[in-house]
């Protein structure tokens, strides 16, 4: 499965100036040049490299990446996860050679191409065919290579009839299909997929997913995959890197890294409170005041085991004089599978604070990480606000009397009436 090292990242650093970046005025640049070249002072930007992050912050400088090192082997599907601003995009930008690191190196073999380059350099006055060549050349193919693939590309795109029409006459769907078709026929040695950037275009997402499957199933197809969907990361990746504030904080199997990531999210996610209705999540009907998780055995920070009964409690402001409201609760596994949906009875609420609770019984959930989303409905059927992924929690295993060492399969692990007894005995 794992072949030669195809990509080696060493001590990668990237320093950014926040805000009005180095579009620095001519005056400042000249002053810096004067200090360095004429007065022989140290380069102020160079000096910074050794200092601490907090000090940098004051100077509007930020390490987008800090001492990042890893290697990728041929055939690996490496997931890169982390919160927004953790440095994922910066890392990809350096790997696709769009920008340079501040310190450190990346060495590699073979051609790196990324799906975020779809349609790059398309010119709307050019025809589909002309754009295939232009795009192919930009992505590093020679015209001969494009010649060979041309029929395949046109075929895959499904826009043959319009291939000699300027692309400005294309629908956006046709445009994306053609662009994707070129990218899909690149056959890079390392494919970079940044799913975060393609959000909102479900067709494109589906296509890129299929492409990833195809490349990864092919022997030797190496992929770097950035995504917010833990489900996708879990199902595609053979290894995952977790970035936080520009540093790698874990590099391990998908299971381990994803659970650490979710754990770090979860700390903040067993309770959410808002004191000001104007700034709270919601809409013009309702605003969330508080959602929290209350294990029956104690206070909110208590461990939840497979046997614990858990109360999901919430309070919200009703801003309308009269509102016929009901609340639905979705429970998902962290990998995105819906375990169940449940719905409250409707309430004719007056203007004011409304509270609610839903109880998940003990001996029902499996040991896994779960995510709760709430949906607020008006007049039983109109959903007015979807409070997505408002709570995260882990359910721990307990060693029961039965010495079962593996995990139980399934999303839930209910304790159901289950009898087992001797009917007749042969012994005597």
């Amino acid at each position: 499965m794992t072949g030669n090292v195809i990509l080696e990242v060493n001590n990668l650093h990237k320093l950014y100036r926040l805000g009005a970046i180095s579009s620095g005025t001519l005056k400042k640049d000249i002053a810096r040049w004067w200090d360095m070249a004429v007065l022989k002072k140290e380069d102020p930007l160079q000096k910074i490299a050794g200092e601490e992050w907090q000090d940098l912050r004051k100077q509007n400088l930020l390490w987008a990446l800090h001492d990042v090192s890893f290697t990728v082997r041929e055939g690996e599907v490496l997931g890169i996860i982390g919160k927004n601003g953790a440095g994922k995009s910066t890392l990809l930008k350096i790997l696709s050679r769009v920008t340079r690191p501040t310190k450190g190196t990346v060495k590699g073999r073979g051609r790196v191409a990324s799906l975020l380059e779809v349609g790059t350099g398309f010119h709307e006055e050019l025809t589909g065919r002309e754009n295939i060549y232009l795009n192919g050349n930009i992505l590093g193919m020679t015209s001969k290579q494009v010649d060979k693939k041309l029929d395949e590309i046109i075929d895959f795109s499904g826009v043959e009839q319009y291939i000699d029409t300027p692309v400005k006459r294309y629908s956006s769907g046709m445009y994306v299909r053609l662009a994707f078709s070129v990218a899909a026929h690149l056959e890079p040695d390392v494919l970079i997929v940044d799913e975060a950037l393609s959000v909102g275009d479900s067709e494109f997402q589906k296509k890129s997913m299929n492409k990833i499957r195809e490349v990864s199933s092919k022997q030797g197809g190496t992929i770097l995959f950035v995504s917010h969907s833990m489900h996708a990361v879990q199902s595609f990746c053979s290894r995952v890197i977790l970035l936080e504030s520009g540093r790698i904080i874990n590099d391990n199997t998908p299971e381990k890294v994803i659970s650490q990531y979710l754990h770090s999210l979860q700390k903040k996610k067993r309770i959410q409170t808002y004191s000001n209705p104007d700034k709270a999540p919601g809409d013009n009907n309702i605003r969330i005041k508080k959602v929290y998780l209350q294990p029956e055995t104690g206070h909110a920070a208590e461990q939840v085991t497979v046997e614990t009964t858990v109360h999901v409690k919430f309070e919200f402001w009703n801003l309308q004089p009269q509102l016929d409201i009901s609340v639905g609760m979705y429970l998902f596994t962290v990998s995105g599978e819906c375990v169940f949906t449940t719905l409250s009875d409707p309430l004719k609420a007056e203007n004011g604070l409304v509270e609610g609770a839903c109880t998940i019984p003990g001996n029902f959930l499996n040991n896994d990480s779960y995510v709760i989303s709430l949906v607020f409905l008006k007049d039983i059927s109109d959903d007015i606000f979807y409070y997505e992924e408002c709570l995260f929690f882990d359910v721990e295993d307990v060693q029961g009397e039965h010495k079962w060492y593996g995990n139980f399969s399934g999303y839930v692990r209910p304790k159901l009436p289950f009898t087992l007894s001797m009917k007749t005995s042969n012994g005597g």
Partner: protein
Amino acid sequence: MSPDTKDWLWEIKPAGSLPDIKPAELLRYKDLVMRFVKRDHIVSYRQTVLGPLWVFLEPLIATYVYFMIFTRIFNIPTDNVPPQLFFLAGVVIWSFFSEAIGAISPVFHHNASVFSKVYFPRIIVPVSLVLSKLTRFGIQCLMLLAMYLYYVLVEKTPVRPNIYLLLVPVLVLVTAFFSLGVGLVMAALAARYRDVQNLMMFAIRLMMFATPVFYPFSLVEEQYRFFLGLNPLTPILEAFRYALFGTGNLDWIHLLYGIAATVVTFVVGLVAFGRVEQNVIDTV
């Protein structure tokens, strides 16, 4: 670890102070250069009524305007060369230079979306722009040749083609490198300070007055000759006209100065562009 882990194909390093130019890599991208040149030509004339005729119309209109103003109104002598021919020769070289610079200097802003997504040696864009203006210039030279033959064969004008016509390709090459050099410097400056773009385009327009486009260098007063002669385009244009018409004079030292200035400009351009290119995406 397998033994071949040492032979890496490429390496990404922090931005250095010297431009990072790999000739082998440029060669691999030659198809892209040609593609950009082609794109420029297609895009400039698609959806225009007169299409490629503009290549001829622009210099012809300019020549006619100069003829009206400088010959008819101000009666500026043109070294005994028919004024139309004299102006056209100046106009084609000048427009090659100014159009190339106008196209190259906003390179980082015009290509920001491509540059922020995909890697290829950035120098490819300015080079392809110069090549595309060079093709245009080549086509315009055919028109110049037609007019030239008309005057020599039909009008029997005393302009004499001479051995120095062989120098023309060299002059064109020097003009191309000078344009590329100036363009690269301006692109590097404009990437950081957008107003450079406006300022420089204005400066280029003024520079035309300091270039013998619509007057012969021989007309320049002695005391200003040195100053105007500093413009590297001046000896190039003078030599071009000398080769074509056999008028004016061919000052070898001045021409060598023009070539030397071109080399310096080009190297400065490469370094400036190469330095800016490496991290420009963080600022544009």
